[in-house]
Structures are given as C-alpha cells and as structure tokens.
C-alpha cells in the first residue's frame, strides 16, 4: 500500500531512552510473552488430564534447564506485568500522573518485580520437594 512507503518522522532512535518509555513498551512485550506462555499452561494442564505418564514427561520437560529458564522468564514477565498493571489501574483511576510519581512508581515496579521473582524462586527451590 502507498502509505507503507511514507517516511516516518521523527525517527524513533533519536529519542533518549527513559525509564517511563522502556517500562511502557515492556508492559506490551511481557503481555505478548505471557499470551504465548498460556500455550505452556494449556500443555501442562492437558498433561495432568492425560495421566501419570504424560504428567511425568511434562514435569521432566519443565524441570530441564531449558524448562527452568523458560519458567524463570515467565515468572519475571508475570510479576512485571502484574505490578505494572496495578500501576496502570491507578492511572486509570486518575492517580499518580505527576512526573515524580510516575518515576517513583516505575522504580517501585522494577524493584517489586525483582523481589517477588527472587522470593518465588527461593521458595520453589526450598519447597516441599526441593525443586520442580
């Protein structure tokens, strides 16, 4: 289409990276990853429904190092999207628009995501079975 050939101005790369814009696009990126992650959720639940054999294969897959890396990234994306989503809900309610508050809540989201992810994985590693 003709409109695809039109020049884009200003070019995106001239903008300085800012916490606010990076967090904003990360919300979308994690949303997409989490949508993809639901395939994994469906697979795991189907494996449970299929029986002990399928469940054992699924657990082995998720317990492999690739599976653990995927699950770790999934946890990270989930907590980020959850925390930043709550930040969005406050904006929707009309709170937190001051620039200082926007940066403070952004830092809080990053911090909370890190802490929650680490706490979750420490609990998983030291859980009843001592690891997935």
């Amino acid at each position, binding site marked *: 289409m003709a409109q695809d050939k039109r020049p884009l101005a200003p070019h995106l790369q001239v903008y300085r990276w800012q916490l606010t814009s990076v967090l904003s696009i990360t919300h979308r990126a994690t949303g997409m990853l989490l949508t993809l992650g*639901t395939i994994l959720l469906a697979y795991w*639940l189907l494996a449970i429904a299929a029986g002990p054999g399928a469940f054992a294969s699924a657990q082995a897959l998720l317990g492999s190092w690739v599976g653990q890396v995927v699950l770790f990234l999934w946890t990270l994306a989930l907590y980020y999207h959850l925390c930043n*989503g709550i930040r969005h809900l406050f904006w929707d309610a009309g709170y937190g628009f001051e620039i200082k508050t926007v940066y403070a809540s952004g830092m809080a989201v990053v911090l909370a995501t890190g802490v929650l992810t680490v706490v979750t994985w420490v609990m998983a590693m030291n859980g009843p079975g001592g690891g997935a």
Partner: protein
Amino acid sequence: MLRPPIARVRGLGSAKDGVRQWWAQRVTAVALVPLTLWFIASVLSMVGADYAGVVAWIQSPSVTVLFILFFLALFYHAQLGMQVIIEDYIHTEWLKFTSLIVLSFTTIFLGIVCTFAVLKVSLGS
C-alpha cells in the same frame, strides 16, 4: 458509561470503537490481580508434589472453580491486549483482520482446552 455526551453525537471517532473493550480490559485486569496471586501461590505449594497430589489439588472444588475463573479472565484479557497490539502495529488491512481472527480463534481454543483439562481431572474418578 464513561462516555461523554459529545461522543454519542460524533460517533465512535478514529478508533472506530467504543469504550466496552477498554472497560473489559480493566475489569479482567482487576480480577486477574488476586487470581494470578492465587495461581502462583498454588503452583508454588505444588512444587515437588506427585501426580496423585496434583490431581487431588485440582479436584478440590474451590481450586476447580478458581481455575475456571482464572481462565475466563486470563484469556479474555490476553485477547483484548493482543488485539490492541495488532491494531496498533499492523496497518495492512487484510493482515490485520486475519491476525485478529486467528487471535480470537486461538484464545478461545486455549481457554476451552484449559477449562476442559481441569474439568476432566476434577470430574474424573
């Protein structure tokens, strides 16, 4: 709701859409906050459990119901979110509409698969 009177006069504007999906996105988001925390906590409590333990967990009535609520909110929310992304970044009309149709089919399919799996475990002997 949430629409100024002038919007009713002028129609739906350049977005060609009303407020319903925006609102549904927020309602599902609010629902997903406690449901996601429940899901993470539950899965965490199941780490290292054997097959019988996981089955017994899903068979608990509250867990079955919470799972189905979680799937409803999750897949509706995912569909609405992905729809916004597709509408924002895909400008070729046929590709945009094809993507939106594939998205609808996929999220509904996955939602039903997840619900079926949980119900099969829950209602199975």
